[in-house]
């Protein structure tokens, strides 16, 4: 069925501008808090292992997503700092679609001991040819610059 009316004048075709005025403050959570504090204070990357399911979660979690059992502190373990590059890409645009002054690499890395991959910036020598399977190492900021954030890791460095 069609509407029995059309607009009589172009000014009737309007758009009304507005916004949803909210910003967000996210807690790291019970598991996230411990993961980030350890990264900040000890410079270590932690994972949590569910032995029956054979999975080591990085970042670590409060519970195994497969069997739902709690992952107690005793099941938490250090992973990395070395790992394997699983995938990578070179990024040219920012969030608003504008060209970055300097394009950057990002990579998915499976740290030694982890089951899944972790996303972070990737540092590669100029003109280097990257391949999945390459060995990388997590480079951290100096202790005094760490804030308890994933950015306490500076980047993955291709070895």
């Amino acid at each position, binding site marked *: *069925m069609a509407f029995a009316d059309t607009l*009589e004048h172009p000014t009737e*075709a309007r758009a*009304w501008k507005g916004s949803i005025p909210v910003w967000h403050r996210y807690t*790291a959570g*019970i598991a996230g808090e411990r993961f980030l504090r350890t990264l900040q204070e000890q410079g270590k990357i932690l994972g949590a292992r569910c032995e029956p399911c054979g999975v080591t979660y990085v970042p670590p979690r409060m519970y195994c997503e497969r069997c739902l059992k709690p992952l107690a502190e005793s099941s938490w373990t250090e992973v990395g700092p070395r790992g394997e590059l699983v995938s990578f890409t070179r990024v040219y645009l920012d969030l608003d679609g504008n060209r970055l002054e300097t394009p950057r690499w990002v990579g998915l890395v499976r740290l030694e001991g982890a089951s899944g991959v972790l996303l972070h910036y990737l540092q590669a020598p100029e003109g280097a040819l990257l391949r999945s399977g390459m060995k990388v190492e997590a480079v951290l900021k100096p202790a005094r610059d760490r804030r308890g*954030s994933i950015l306490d890791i500076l980047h993955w460095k291709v070895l």
Partner: protein
Amino acid sequence: MMDQWVYATTGLHEKDFEAGQVLVETWEGKAEYAWDTGIAMGRFLEELRRGRLVGRRCNSCRRILFPPRMFCELCFRPTAEWVTLGQTGTVITYSLVHVRWDMVRLEQPQVPAVIAMDGAAQGMGILHLLGEVAPEKVKMGMRVQAVWKPAEDREGSITDIRYFKPIR
């Protein structure tokens, strides 16, 4: 008893955040929109600029719908024609508001109301503000009329009506 099935969730206080006791990330999302007014609302806003309130008639149930819409939700068929309403109506309900949406207190209370417009079907109200009336004098069923901005200040907005005031 069910007490054992309640998890000991960790509650925080605002001061825990202020003291940096918990790690947080913040994000200021830019959720900006340009909403298309559509056919009914586009015309409605244009008529407001001209100092008029319009509704739409459904020829099946014969109601005059206000705010106007291009189809009748009861009969589920297109509405048939534009109808110009009067400037007066009746207060169906009202409130005296002392806070903003972020809970900051207002200096002067606002008086929003739902006003059933004369000429529309029974109970066809819209939300607007009441003015030129002391808050304690507002009554259910009060008769009110629209007070407009001067023609040159109108933009084709619901705020082209400044408020509704009691008919004396």
